[in-house]
């Protein structure tokens, strides 16, 4: 198979690691679209990147577009010879070259104009500058004059090769060429490349172009370092990605620190290593933190140990700071810091963290939290006044919990404070104790209620208080923490907040739990509070869905719903037994009344699946009714009574789900 015949390398000053993968994806799509729009065959073979280059390789690009023919139609034949001559003159051809085009409206002079396809090189040269600058970045910059091009960081060179030739263009003041650039210190500044030997040439100049290779090199390097030392790296996929895109030639090194620092909580040590120094932490026998770390350099080696020594010195200074904070913070107990929260702003319009704390304590009481939960609610935010959290903000909550433990607060309260920011993401777990669940729930609910109260409602991508995450956390806590708490009464009757939650709930059931969207709509339309109940109903629907009665039943319910709606029938009007016609109508009523009690008691015992099965068993009676009975009876009283019966049936049996929301095939 022939290799790529097109290569684009955009040489840039160091791009922030986390922005690279989405940029590559855009590049792939934009180039594919460029080919399609220009009727060029070929496809993107790969895209890849280092911090200093975004690269795309494509295969099978043709020399140019195929020649094509365009039919140009002219005046009608009836217009005569003069018109034909005029038409031919305009096209620069002779009348003899014209043809006749037959249409339903008559015959016309026409001409088959041959279009010579444009050369691919020319198309690429025209389109690539725009394509490069179309890559969307979270925060672009300019680097010469205000009016000049914007990109994530300055573009310093561009390689664009089609076959063995350079595709000539200029972008952001840089002229394309076949000259790339090697590693800043272990490669030449100018490296001549060809498509076939691109990767090889860069490898010889200290650059591994492919992220997969760098990732593997990091992991293999780490394995070799810890092997035989009884150590293990703590896996950290996000950090691995960061380091992969922060380096052109990554090399792992193992450093160590004084075991005395291990007396500090491992959370603090790991945060310092992870967030401040981008080190992997290392565990020893029994999974305990070892006095070692793994750093990843952007150079091939550390022959004199200077890099290890430098990193060890930096880490020592960081750990000394942490130890200083740990000791000095403890001079003032967490429980003595509540009043100081009055000086910490929660939000300008919403007052201080002391105000928030008081509200959360009340809410935890209202939710039935015990003394430990209430204590935790009171002390949860106090660590915001500690130097440790000011320095390591990621450790909020965790530090409070650790200090409380060290200061003799109850384990239950300490654990609740430790966990109360959880879940931090959809992947994160919920707090591990009931008190933790309640404090976390109350904290998030308070933020949501207060922000919505003053109109701070997220819109589009603007969500400065991370309210979506907070609401998602509430949903997750209620469902995964199995709390017997009704959500709706806690939302202050704020309609916008209810809508906001409904969106989050839908998202959770669909994306996290994988329920079908119409099942989710059907169940939520029948009510969404309390959430565990809604989930149980969803599971019942999911279980019933593949059975033969389900879809026809859903279709029948939809029909009933439509009939009632079209008739403008007012719900809640009782039907009158005496007016029911013997046969299918009376039978349906009997079936309905026979099932009603069973369904209610099954639901009361939490057996939604059983209740649903009973509801499904009404199907033959419904089918027969629609088969034999005319709802739109000429007698308006009979008609009204039939609608009343159907309406009762619908209302009664829609408490599990609004079946009319189910999409039937």
């Amino acid at each position: 198979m022939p290799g790529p015949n097109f290569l684009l390398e955009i040489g840039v000053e160091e791009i922030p690691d986390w922005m690279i993968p989405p940029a590559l994806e855009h590049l792939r799509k934009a180039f594919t679209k460029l080919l399609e729009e220009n009727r060029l065959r070929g496809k993107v073979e790969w895209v890849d990147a280092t911090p200093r280059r975004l690269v795309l390789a494509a295969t099978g690009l043709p020399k140019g577009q195929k020649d094509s023919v365009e039919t140009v139609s002219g005046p009608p034949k009836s217009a005569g010879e003069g018109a034909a001559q005029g038409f031919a003159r305009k096209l620069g051809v002779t009348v003899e070259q014209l043809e006749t085009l037959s249409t339903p409206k008559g015959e016309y002079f026409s001409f088959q104009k041959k279009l010579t396809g444009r050369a691919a090189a020319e198309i690429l040269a025209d389109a690539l500058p725009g394509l490069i600058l179309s890559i969307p970045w979270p925060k672009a910059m300019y680097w010469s004059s205000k009016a000049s091009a914007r990109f994530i960081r300055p573009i310093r060179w561009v390689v664009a090769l089609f076959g063995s030739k350079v595709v000539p263009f200029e972008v952001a003041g840089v002229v394309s060429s076949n000259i790339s650039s090697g590693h800043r210190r272990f490669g030449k500044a100018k490296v001549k490349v060809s498509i076939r030997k691109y990767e090889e040439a860069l490898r010889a100049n200290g650059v591994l172009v492919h992220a997969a290779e760098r990732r593997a090199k990091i992991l293999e390097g780490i394995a070799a370092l810890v092997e035989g030392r009884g150590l293990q790296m703590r896996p950290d996929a996000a950090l691995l990605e960061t380091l992969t895109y922060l380096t052109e030639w990554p090399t792992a090194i193992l450093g160590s620190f004084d075991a005395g620092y291990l007396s500090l909580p491992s959370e603090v040590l790991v945060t310092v290593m992870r967030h401040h120094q981008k080190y992997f932490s290392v565990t020893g026998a029994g999974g305990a933190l070892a006095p070692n770390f793994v750093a990843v350099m952007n150079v091939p080696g550390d022959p004199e140990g200077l890099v290890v020594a430098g990193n060890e010195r930096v880490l020592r200074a960081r750990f000394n700071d942490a130890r200083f904070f740990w000791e000095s913070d403890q001079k003032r107990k967490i429980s003595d810091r509540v009043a100081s929260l009055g000086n910490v702003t929660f939000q300008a319009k919403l007052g201080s963290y002391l105000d928030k704390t008081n509200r959360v304590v009340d809410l935890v009481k209202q939710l039935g939290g015990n003394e430990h939960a209430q204590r935790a609610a009171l002390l949860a935010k106090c660590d915001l006044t500690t130097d440790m959290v000011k320095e390591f903000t990621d450790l909020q909550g965790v530090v409070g919990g650790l200090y409380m433990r060290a200061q003799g607060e109850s384990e239950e309260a300490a654990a609740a404070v430790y966990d109360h920011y959880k879940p931090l993401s959809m992947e994160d777990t919920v707090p591990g104790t009931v008190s933790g669940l309640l404090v976390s729930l109350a904290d998030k609910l308070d933020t949501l209620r207060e922000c919505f109260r003053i109109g701070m409602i997220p819109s589009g991508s603007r969500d400065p208080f991370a309210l979506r995450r907070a609401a998602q956390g509430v949903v997750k806590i209620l469902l995964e923490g199995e709390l017997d708490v009704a959500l709706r009464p806690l939302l202050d009757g704020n309609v916008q907040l209810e809508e906001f939650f409904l969106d989050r709930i839908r998202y959770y059931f669909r994306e996290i739990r994988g329920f079908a969207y119409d099942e989710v709509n059907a169940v939520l339309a029948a009510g969404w509070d309390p959430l565990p109940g809604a989930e149980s109903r969803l599971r019942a629907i999911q279980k019933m869905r593949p059975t033969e009665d389900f879809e026809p039943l859903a279709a029948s319910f939809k029909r009933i719903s439509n009939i009632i709606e079209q008739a403008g029938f007012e719900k809640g009007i009782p039907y009158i037994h005496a007016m029911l016609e013997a046969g299918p109508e009376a039978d349906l009523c009997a079936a309905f009344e026979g099932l009603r009690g069973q369904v209610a008691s099954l639901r009361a015992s939490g057996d939604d699946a059983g209740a649903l099965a009973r509801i499904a068993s009404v199907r033959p009676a419904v089918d027969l009714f629609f088969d034999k009975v005319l709802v739109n009876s000429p007698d308006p009283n009979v008609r009204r009574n039939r609608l009343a019966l159907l309406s009762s049936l619908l209302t009664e049996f829609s408490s599990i789900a609004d079946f009319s929301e189910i999409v039937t095939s």
Partner: protein
Amino acid sequence: MDSYQQILFKLKKYWSDRGCIIQEPYDVEVGAGTMCPETFLRVLGPKPYRVAYVQASRRPSDGRYGENPNRLYKHQQLQVILKPAPADVMDQYLGSLEAVGIDLKKHDIKFEEDNWESPTLGAWGIGWQVMLDGLEITQFTYFQQCGGIDLEMAPAELTYGLERLSAFLQNKESVYEIEWAPGVRYSDVRLADERQFSVYNFELADIDTLWQLFALHEKECQRMIDLYPDYEEKQRFPVLATYDHVLKCSHLFNLLDSRGAISVTERVGVIGRVRKLAVGTAQLWAAQEAA
């Protein structure tokens, strides 16, 4: 081993050789070299400029009574402004590290995303923190906006943390152990002011007086800004003198902050007051340059 002052000489020489004016430190208190008029005002407008200077940066809240080996109330920055940024600015920067004796084939350099923003100055830029063996030694920024004005020409700003760099080069665990000149340690030169200013900034500074001073400088600065539109001879107008009052306000704000006199609630408001002056002065400078 080079002394601290030799390292400075070498860096100044290096940038002097690359067309920079070597300025001396500005004589009004600043929180960062960026705030000096040589940076804050010169980056505005279309005139090219290259300058390097050492600036003492005063950050009262960072004071540790001289007891923390790495934190200082006042540290020294080498500030380099290259306007416009040359295409090989990164190579020039790396060259400066080699000029002070760092063999970059034996060390690990990384450029990690770190965008700079100063709400009090209405200024921001895009760039990196430069990490040398895991130690942040330089802030590298392409300015985009200053005093609320989009810059005509994006300059590169290099800010070297001189104590850190020197401690690295001299392999010292504490900045106080740095050899400033042969036989003279950093602590011999600077320990006393670290102690004394920590005591003053954290304990003794009179809050009422600081607030009054803040208000006086703010008033004078605003009076000058308001004077400009009707001032006849624009080129004579003392924009630089007006700007000194911005710096005074900024420093007083930092002092009040370290004294614990500004609640978090008030903070935003006070920052806004300083920014108003900074933006007003920047606009005067731009107008005067264009006049």
